[in-house]
């Protein structure tokens, strides 16, 4: 990267040093599992004089995703969003209002046709012709349908946009629908979470800007670098689960000791996200739900968050060891990784099962299977 480019952007970044700037992108690249050199490429992509246009549409949302994005405090993130990306339309953040805001959106779409990144935040109500969310007198359903075919990439941020989230909770009064169902046949990246981790979003945007293609996605459209592992796999309390040490009531001795929250209904064993590794709010260790002593409720997982009863036991999807877990049978031939993990986790499961009878069936909505069937 040319030195003078960086000088220009140092000004834009409010005096951030070259070192900090490159360090930031190196961290971003490594959080996506990309080689170190990619960080410099990303830095180059965002210092391109033509700032990439981002159009952010808000549907049935609470602005929580925007707030968490704005509060991301990696060096100068606000500058990254506001100075390095051209955020051409965002209802909560734009200066013009009314028809001027709508004109800004139309202009950005015209000028960046086929290139801009469309971000949708919130679910799309389809009931009664979409009257439950109107912008400038138009249903957001119509706006999303009109804007999407002209976008270069589409990102659904938050659980509402990704799979329905809160508005789609039973009885889904407004017919709240995720973006990818509205835009069937168009690739949509889902960044679920309530709120979504700002770094999962920013990493995806940077990946797209750098490589001009979307990152590798799983079967639910989620980037694999962020949603490839269960929360349970990298949870800091996982050793307590494996050893069979559980909190059974809020505030009991085991809870105070920081034991596993599985019996309080933690949905970590069935929720895919990187919260235990990335945390929230950049304020140090423990800054995520389980770290503060509350069970994960699966906010990012379809069919779990806002669907499964809060304090009911999670379905343990599969038992894999923590990334740093030592082998249960080191060196034993013909032992598959599943069996290795099973050995280590058996104690946890046996003891966990005893608590199951006590907790299953809490909450009005009955069991998980019923819910899933209803949704399908």
């Amino acid at each position, binding site marked *: 990267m040319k030195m003078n480019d960086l000088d220009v952007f140092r000004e834009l970044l409010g005096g951030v040093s070259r070192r900090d700037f490159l360090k930031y992108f190196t961290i971003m690249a490594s959080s996506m599992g990309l080689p170190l050199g990619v960080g410099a490429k990303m830095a180059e992509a965002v210092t391109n004089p033509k700032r990439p246009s981002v159009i952010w549409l808000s549907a049935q949302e609470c602005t*929580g995703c925007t707030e968490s994005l704005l509060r991301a405090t990696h060096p100068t993130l606000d500058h990254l969003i506001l100075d390095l990306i051209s955020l051409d339309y965002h209802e909560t953040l734009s200066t013009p209002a009314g028809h001027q805001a709508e004109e800004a959106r139309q202009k950005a779409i015209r000028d960046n046709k086929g290139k801009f990144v469309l971000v949708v935040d919130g679910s799309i109500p389809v009931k009664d012709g979409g009257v439950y969310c109107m912008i400038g007198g138009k249903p957001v359903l119509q706006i999303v349908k009109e804007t999407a075919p002209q976008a270069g990439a589409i990102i659904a941020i938050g659980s509402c946009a990704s799979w329905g989230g809160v508005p789609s909770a039973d009885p889904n009064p407004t017919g709240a629908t995720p973006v990818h169902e509205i835009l069937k046949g168009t690739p949509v990246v889902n960044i679920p979470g309530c709120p979504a981790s700002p770094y999962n979003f920013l990493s995806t945007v940077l990946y797209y800007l750098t490589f001009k293609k979307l990152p590798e996605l799983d079967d639910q459209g989620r980037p694999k670098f962020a949603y490839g592992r269960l929360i349970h796999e990298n949870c800091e309390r996982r050793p307590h689960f494996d050893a069979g040490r559980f909190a059974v009531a809020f505030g009991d001795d085991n809870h105070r000791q920081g034991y596993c929250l599985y019996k309080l209904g933690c949905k970590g064993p069935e929720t895919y996200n990187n919260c235990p590794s990335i945390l929230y709010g950049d304020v140090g260790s423990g800054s995520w739900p389980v770290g503060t002593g509350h069970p994960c409720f699966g906010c990012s997982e379809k069919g779990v968050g806002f669907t499964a009863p809060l304090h009911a036991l999670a379905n343990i999807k599969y038992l894999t060891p923590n990334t740093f877990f030592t082998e249960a049978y080191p060196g034993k031939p013909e032992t598959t990784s599943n069996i290795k993990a099973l050995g280590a986790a058996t104690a946890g499961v046996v003891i966990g099962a005893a608590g199951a009878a006590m907790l299953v069936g809490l909450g009005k909505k009955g069991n998980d299977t019923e819910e899933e069937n209803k949704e399908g």
Partner: protein
Amino acid sequence: MSTRITIDPITRIEGHLRIECEVDGGHVTNAWSSGQMWRGIENIVKGRDAREVWLFTQRICGV
């Protein structure tokens, strides 16, 4: 002779707000504000286990 002005969307706030006002001789004579988005959280929490209602009400506004 009054003029009717509509501002929709109102930006820099959370949610979708629409303001309509009647202006007569440089003075606002009447005005209406309306929320343009509804999720029905009241209906969603009805009959739910009280211990999980906070999950929904907390998300009325994320600001």
